[in-house]
């Protein structure tokens, strides 16, 4: 599956975009947006919850359309254009995940915390809205479900 990692040159605020089968690392994403000009870094980690709609989740997998990475870059570029972003990173996990695993980590560094929070919120919201990734859940009662497709 896709395990490419696009690390941009320093001048480019987009420091790391990736879709990965391997477990995600908060340290890696945070380090990617480190910058002496930044005063604040907002990070969001989306994790696998142990229940959904009252049912116990036992396993979960994410799959992505081939255009997912290009869409992720488009989302990142729009955020970098719309906010005073010093540095930005977004990584999404694909494949099989367990409860509490990180499914997505996004991080934005700015001079001030207000901008960092707003840009980070926009990044995760737009990612969820426009990047073609699908989530399939299996429940303890043996049933399963494609999230948002039922």
């Amino acid at each position: 599956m896709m395990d490419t990692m696009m690390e941009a040159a320093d001048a480019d605020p987009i420091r790391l975009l990736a879709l990965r089968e391997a477990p995600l690392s908060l340290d890696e994403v945070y380090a990617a947006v480190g910058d002496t000009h930044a005063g604040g870094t907002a990070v969001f980690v989306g994790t696998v919850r142990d229940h959904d709609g009252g049912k116990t989740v036992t396993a979960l997998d994410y799959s992505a359309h081939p255009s997912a990475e290009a869409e992720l870059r488009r989302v990142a570029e729009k955020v970098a254009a719309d906010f005073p972003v010093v540095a930005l990173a977004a990584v999404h996990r694909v494949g099989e995940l367990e409860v509490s695993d990180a499914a997505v980590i996004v991080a934005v560094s700015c001079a001030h915390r207000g901008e960092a929070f707003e840009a980070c919120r926009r990044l995760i919201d737009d990612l969820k809205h426009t990047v073609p990734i699908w989530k399939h859940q299996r429940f303890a009662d043996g049933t399963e479900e494609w999230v948002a497709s039922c």
Partner: protein
Amino acid sequence: MTAGSASAEATGVSEGTIRYWAAAKAEAGTGEEPYRAATLAEALAAARALHADRPRFAQVLGLCSFLVDGDPVGGRDHATVELKQGGTVEVLPPFAGG
């Protein structure tokens, strides 16, 4: 040559591949199947007929967005979206990243 197929060529019917993703693939029971249609609307109508025995197929299809030859169809009227010979129609259920 039946009148249907002759006139079909004249009116731009083309053949290509429908690719189903995620929930659409699960409900169709297949990742790919051919299309023989002039427009996206025709191709999808044919697919619904083909999978009429699968109760949730049409329902999931109704939630999907589409790419034709890689380009998002968006809000365009499916009847006005012409398909090409050897082209692809991709069926994308609602996204659920993060």
